[in-house]
């Protein structure tokens, strides 16, 4: 059996990398695995930071105008005099929570970390096609993150016009908004460099015999995601340039004529269109939704195939659905804009495309669900997270339908229902899948397994708390509570019946934090003390497990792998093992 590698070989491979200096090896690294790990740590820190912003906001929502406990005094006199946060600060927290979670947390984790580490291994490549671009991509992301974080300390604080930065408000906002735009330019550059790298790597560096229809579904998901990043982000970059011109050069791209601010007419030439920003923004941000969800689907597909010990049901339909979904995601953006008065004809068009795009999502989710049928399921920690992804994403997807239809959206637009909907997709959906991926690939990265007991505590706590946070949002939203209220809706008569949910949601959010502590302990303990495992502890078929040592050395494989079969040949009748790795030759 050629693919089994002895630990001596592995040790030799690691020794090989030690020729590099510390800076070259860990900081300005060119190895895709190190860059993947850099992305992993940075994005996890940002996820925790973005979550912290929300935990502070949840205090204000549950107990409006009361002193924030513990950290209230640390927020700064301008932001929270006497520990009570001011509305401007609340707005900063809201805008930066969205920005950080989407652009600095989930996308870098799903694409930067998992894509970088796993994709070249799964296709049998020694590294990414452009290692230097890969390094620049990480450092550009890092600069973007630093820019965003430091904007909290400039006069007027961070950006406070929402994560969507709608003008004219954002055009006249404080300096933090300019920082936000510069930060976005860095992040866009980062994902541009990354996506080019991923596409070229997948197309050019596949191992011999690894045809497109033999690619693991995870690779397909990353490939389609990269195309979305490549083609959808530039329009936002264009929009950012226009907004920077508005803010710095005094142009009026997004400022209409006759604008009055604080009782004074604004002295600009006017003639711009606030709606233009929304079109450009959502042209990015709707494909962005799929950037958030597709890698998660890829991770879940890998884990489900591995833990049910059978091939994915309908692999080809899933791939075609994925490609169709990627294409359609460019044609649905204006369903975010039904309320802007853009006209019923356009609304009808985007309503139709939105209903169409739900079909491929349902195809993928159904295929994953049917894949469970008749499997001898191993309830490992990653599998629990992957299984929970299915109903959670299902809820997120189905609650999106009333938002995609213009008549129902008129009632639900900008209410907590919307928040509940997309958080179900991204939080119990994508984030659970990302946790699944961390538990699943941890042995490949470290050569050790994470603790199962702590993993299961983390899983059940996270699942229950997330549902307690986001389910009541549907109730509040259906009652008509706006998503943008500083006091959570206290001043409104129609909100009174559902206000008590604010306390439940906030308690659940803080409990969610407590349930992340087992994960953090588990993560760092397992790096040093976790149970040592062989290179293929999950008995998986794909190349990263079957052909590379754990952890893989510089250059990944000791012998160049060759592929003879599809990605998920589990439980093939007549074989002595219940898995047949992709690089195992046919018996002659």
């Amino acid at each position, binding site marked *: 059996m050629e693919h089994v590698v002895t630990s001596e070989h592995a040790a030799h491979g690691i020794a090989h990398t030690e020729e590099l200096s510390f800076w070259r090896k860990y900081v300005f690294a060119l190895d895709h695995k190190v860059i993947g790990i850099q992305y992993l740590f940075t994005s996890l820190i940002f996820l925790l930071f973005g979550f912290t912003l929300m935990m502070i906001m949840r205090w204000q929502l549950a107990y409006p105008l009361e002193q924030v406990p513990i950290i209230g005094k640390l927020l700064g006199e301008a932001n929270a005099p006497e520990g009570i946060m001011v509305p401007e600060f609340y707005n900063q927290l809201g805008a930066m929570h969205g920005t950080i979670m989407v652009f600095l947390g989930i996308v870098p984790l799903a694409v930067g970390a998992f894509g970088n580490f796993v994709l070249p291994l799964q296709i049998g490549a*020694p590294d990414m*096609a*452009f290692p230097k671009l890969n390094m620049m991509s990480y450092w550009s992301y890092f600069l973007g993150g630093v820019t965003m974080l430091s904007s909290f300390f400039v006069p007027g604080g961070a950006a406070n016009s929402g994560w969507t930065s709608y003008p004219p408000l954002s055009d006249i906002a404080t300096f933090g908004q300019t920082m936000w735009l510069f930060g976005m330019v860095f992040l866009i550059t980062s994902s541009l460099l990354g996506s080019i790298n991923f596409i070229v790597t997948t197309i*050019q560096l596949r191992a011999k015999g690894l045809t497109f229809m033999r690619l693991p579904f995870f690779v397909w998901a990353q490939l389609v995601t990269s195309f979305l990043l*490549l083609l959808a982000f*530039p329009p936002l970059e264009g929009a950012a340039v226009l907004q920077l011109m508005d803010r710095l*050069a005094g*142009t009026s791209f997004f400022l209409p004529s006759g604008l009055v601010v604080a009782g004074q007419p604004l002295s600009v030439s006017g*003639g*711009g269109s606030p709606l233009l920003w929304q079109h450009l923004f959502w042209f990015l941000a709707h494909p962005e939704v799929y950037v958030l969800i597709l890698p998660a689907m890829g991770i879940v597909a890998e884990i489900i195939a591995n833990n049910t010990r059978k091939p994915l049901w309908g692999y080809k339909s899933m791939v075609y659905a994925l490609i169709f979904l990627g294409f359609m995601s460019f044609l649905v953006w204006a369903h975010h804009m039904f309320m802007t008065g853009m006209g019923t004809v356009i609304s009808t068009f985007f309503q139709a495309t939105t209903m169409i795009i739900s079909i491929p999502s349902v195809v993928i989710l159904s295929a994953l669900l049917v894949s469970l049928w008749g499997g001898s399921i191993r309830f490992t920690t990653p599998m629990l997270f992957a299984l929970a992804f299915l109903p959670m994403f299902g809820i997120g997807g189905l609650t999106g339908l009333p938002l995609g239809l213009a008549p129902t959206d008129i009632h639900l637009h900008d209410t907590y229902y919307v928040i509940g909907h997309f958080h179900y997709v991204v939080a119990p959906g994508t984030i659970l899948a990302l946790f699944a991926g961390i538990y699943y690939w941890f042995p490949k990265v470290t050569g050790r397994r994470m603790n199962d007991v702590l993993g299961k505590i983390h899983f059940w706590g996270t699942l229950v708390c997330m549902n307690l946070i986001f389910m009541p949002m549907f109730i509040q939203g259906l009652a008509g509570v706006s998503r943008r209220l500083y006091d959570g809706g206290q001043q409104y008569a129609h909100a009174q019946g559902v206000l008590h949910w604010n306390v439940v949601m906030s308690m659940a959010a803080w409990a969610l934090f407590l349930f992340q502590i087992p994960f953090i302990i588990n993560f760092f303990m397992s790096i040093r003390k976790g149970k040592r495992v062989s290179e293929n502890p999950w008995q998986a078929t794909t190349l990263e497990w079957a052909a590379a040592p754990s952890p893989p050395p510089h250059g990944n494989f000791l012998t160049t792998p060759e592929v003879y079969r599809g990605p998920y040949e589990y439980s093939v009748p007549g074989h002595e093992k219940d898995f047949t790795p992709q690089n195992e030759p046919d018996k002659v």
Partner: protein
Amino acid sequence: MQIPHTTTARPETGLVNAKLGIWLFLASEVMLFGALFSSYILLRVGAPVWPHGAEHLNVPLATLNTIVLITSSVTMVMSWASLMMKNFDRYKLFMGLTILLGLVFLFVKGFEYGGKFSHGLFPRESTFFAIYFTLTGLHGLHVLGGIIVNSYFWGSGSKMWKTEPERFTNRVEVAGLYWHFVDLIWIFLFPTIYLL
């Protein structure tokens, strides 16, 4: 460790990595300028009056710049062709000319901007001037980027010709694709802003 297909094309695609990479990059550039051109259309359609470009902008200078940029595209191809014919000195000459023409373009552009500024015409003047300065400015930055890359391949980057001539030729070809693209953007910008 050697990354496959840096110099030899992958048989199925017929491409080396860098060439596929630059095409993808250009696709993203199409989306960037596509979004900005679309914004231009949307703003113009929504405007009650829109000035005629030729009445406010310097068409002869822009025509000159068009000729300069098209010529530089020709010299760029000649520099690559020289490398294909293994004539490094001719490469140096044509690449040098390409860089020079790029600088001439920027100089003329700067002169044109100066004329506008001296008449008190800044981007904040009107949406028309905002579009004019933003689009030509962004294009100018792309020209500048191309000049920097070309200068590297003309100067210290050309050492690679001695060690890996095939790879160096590929690099110049890839830089050429970008340069032609920047040229192409101008060919769209010129009529859109100056003539229509």
